[in-house]
């Protein structure tokens, strides 16, 4: 009888042990699956938040550029009074006003660096500043370089396009800036943003 008992006991223990191991493994699988989903959700939401942040920065910069372009558009009032033509005769003055406005609108310091490092992580550079003066059927293109030099070209109305592909139909200002941006895990990338603004007379 005793021998029988001794024979059965090891089998029973083995069965129990295998059951316990199976349960432990099941528990581990549950934990691993849960953590995987948690990690996946975390990464997904982080990337979504980053995209949203980039979208917000893009919109903010577009607003700032539009406002700065408008600030630079100081037209020749005498010309407007006599011929009702909107012309920006002083591109250098316009460029200076644009620089001041960009600095204010993007909250840049004296070194042209963004104070909000989440948006602009380094120095902002003006990549392009062009004034398109439309007079009758002609478009005069005045590009101001960073050293203050002005290059002048002319074209027929309807054939001149801004760097963003838009056909020039009225006196306009196009500007483009480049700046570094920092993303998740401090990954830095160079970004460009350009904006064209038409200057048209308001209807009273």
């Amino acid at each position, binding site marked *: 009888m005793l021998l029988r008992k001794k024979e059965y006991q090891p089998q029973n223990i083995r069965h129990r042990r295998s059951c316990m191991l199976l349960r432990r493994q099941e*528990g581990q699988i549950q934990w691993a699956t849960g953590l995987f*989903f948690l990690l996946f959700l975390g990464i997904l*939401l982080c990337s979504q*938040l980053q995209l949203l942040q980039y979208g*917000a920065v893009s919109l903010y910069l577009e*607003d700032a550029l539009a406002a*700065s372009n*408008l*600030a630079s558009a100081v037209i020749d009032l005498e010309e407007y009074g006599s011929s009702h033509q909107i012309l920006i005769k002083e591109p250098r003055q316009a460029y200076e006003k644009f620089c001041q406005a960009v600095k204010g609108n993007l*909250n840049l310091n004296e070194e042209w660096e963004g104070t909000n490092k989440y948006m602009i992580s380094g120095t902002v550079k003006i990549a392009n500043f062009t004034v398109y003066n439309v007079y009758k059927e002609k478009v005069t293109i005045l590009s101001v370089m960073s050293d203050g030099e002005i290059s002048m070209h002319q074209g027929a109305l309807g054939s001149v396009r801004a760097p963003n592909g838009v056909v020039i139909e009225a006196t306009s200002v196009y500007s483009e800036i480049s700046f570094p941006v920092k993303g998740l895990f401090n990954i830095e990338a160079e970004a460009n943003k350009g904006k064209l603004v038409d200057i048209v007379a308001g209807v009273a």
Partner: protein
Amino acid sequence: MKKQQGNIGDILSAALCILAMSVVLISFLNCVGLVQQKLAVGQLARKYILKMETVGCLTSVEKVNLSRELVEMGVTEIDLSGTTLNMTGYGEAITLHIHGKLRGEYAFEEKRVSTAKH
């Protein structure tokens, strides 16, 4: 029928994961809400700087309207110091400077610079 023995560990792991996911999701929605609010304030600033361009300054009526709209957006501790409140001439610089707090906690600063066109 005999009731099977339950394992608290199985339920605990699932519950903890669901709880952690909920926390992550809530903080994400919170962040998104804040970004959206900041964007809305930016759009409002854009609207008012354009108004200021046509007038030459932020008039007292517009100042009240701006403050009201900011309050409606949930902005507290509104401060418009640094904003051009006196009439300026054609081509002169005008500034709209908004300081405030979103949800009473997150301080922000919105600045718009342009030139008067009136």
